[in-house]
């Protein structure tokens, strides 16, 4: 029996209050998301029916194309991550409270990073596709922009928490600003930087897989077409390929990150 460990055995008042508020918000916003008992009851059977469609033999002749597209997706993610790495390091140095040359530069840098990280990759991809045309290039640009915003912030936070003693030690020898950065600040932040770069790479592969929706290269385009044309025998291998790539990369980066952070 679940009896709460309070004197009267009832759930604590704060818990009940939070639950009531959340339930109220859910009910109040239900019309906006068009949730009502009828739609919910109808959803179950339709989902099951759709899952029945997915029970098909994959289209084996499509596999070489699929491999090609997946490779393109991963290449896009890798290039975008590399570009963002190069661009975000100087930005991070400028927007880390401890090493920023001036408080205004710090404030400006942080706001800039928050601004470019705010919009999702797909919005940037839409805009870049309109600007430079279809293909992987707009996808890479979109991924790189958002990643600069994210990495810049994470790197700046990693730089802020380094041990100040080596920094003082190097500075006490009369090292210049960039020498202090290169010999005391960055080496200490390096494991963190590598760890978050791996995390970002992981995220970017997943993001690159959907950029094709707006014509920005990668597997996403094939996915949308398979969906529109009801080619379930292609949709299933596409889903499986994305799952496989993301999972393998996730495992690999988890291992590598554990090794880097524990030295």
């Amino acid at each position: 029996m679940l009896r709460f460990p309070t004197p009267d055995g009832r759930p604590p008042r704060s818990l009940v209050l939070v639950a009531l508020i959340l339930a109220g918000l859910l009910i109040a916003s239900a019309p906006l998301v068009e949730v009502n008992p009828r739609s919910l009851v109808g959803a179950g059977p339709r989902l099951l029916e759709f899952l029945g469609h997915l029970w098909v033999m994959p289209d084996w002749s499509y596999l070489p194309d699929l491999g090609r597209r997946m490779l393109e997706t991963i290449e896009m993610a890798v290039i975008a991550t590399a570009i963002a790495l190069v661009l975000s390091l100087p930005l991070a140095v400028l927007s880390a409270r401890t090493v920023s040359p001036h408080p205004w530069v710090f404030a400006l840098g942080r706001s800039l990073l928050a601004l470019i990280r705010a919009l999702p990759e797909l919005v940037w991809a839409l805009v870049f596709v309109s600007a430079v045309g279809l293909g992987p290039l707009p996808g890479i640009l979109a991924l790189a922009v958002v990643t600069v915003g994210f990495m810049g912030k994470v790197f700046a936070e990693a730089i802020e928490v380094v041990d100040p003693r080596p920094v003082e030690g190097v500075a006490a020898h009369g090292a210049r600003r960039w020498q202090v950065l290169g010999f005391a600040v960055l080496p200490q932040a390096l494991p963190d930087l590598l760890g978050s770069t791996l995390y970002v790479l992981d995220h970017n592969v997943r993001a690159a897989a959907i950029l094709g929706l707006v014509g920005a290269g990668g597997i996403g385009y094939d996915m949308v077409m398979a969906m529109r044309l009801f080619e379930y025998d292609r949709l299933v291998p596409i889903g499986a390929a994305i799952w496989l790539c993301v999972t393998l990369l996730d495992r690999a980066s988890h291992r590598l990150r554990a090794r880097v952070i524990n030295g």
Partner: protein
Amino acid sequence: MAEPPVLPPRPRSWLPAWAAAALALLYAAGHDLELSFEDLAYGLDDMVEYFGRYRAPDFAGVPGMLVLMMQTLATAFWGTMLAIVLGGLLAPLAARNLSPARWTYLTARELLNLMRAMPDLLLALVFVAALGLGPLPGVLALGVHTAGFLGKFCAESMERVEPGVYDGLAATGATLPQRIMYAAWPSVLREAAGYVLVILDRNVRMGAVLGLVGAGGIGLALHETLRLFDYARSSALILVMLVTILAMDALSSSLRRRLG
């Protein structure tokens, strides 16, 4: 003549080799994608001109946009609640020290991995195909995808809780549901609330683009105005999105700071 001091051997650095390999890999990838940075350089002027077209936002349609934005926010909220329910049920099963058997642990973990690996737009596509257009498929897509994250993070937090907390409760003869309710959840509540805020923030961002696949919200409007080359309205839509997302971001990070 003084002996020269014996220096320790120079440390061997593999950095140049790694850097060269990384550059070669990048070059190969760029070559394979047929990227040319000349195109980019020549296109730079065009891009500056292109972004200039967004200069004059047309705020006439803002009330309509705000309604769509509200729909996006509601989708994100419902998705987050769905994630709390799904992830909350799976998290104790996916925690090594709580799961009743090895197979439940492995099944729950793999299920969470699968939910996490599927991009939410792909899920939204699938749910739109199954349930028709509207925000409901968006709610399901966001909920399923982020339940994977929430479940994984909460499970890892539960694994980090001191074993004494569980042992103390087990010593009183508590059953598994009681240990989950009175030891696991209260110990990780603070961390879990932080994860929920992160996920809510992320869902608002992704909710803004779900419209692209017909799952409701402000994304559909942006897609249409860009298709029609209506830069004034597109720019107003992007501004509405930007302001909302930044506000949510600030709210979520200030709440997280108060959680400590």
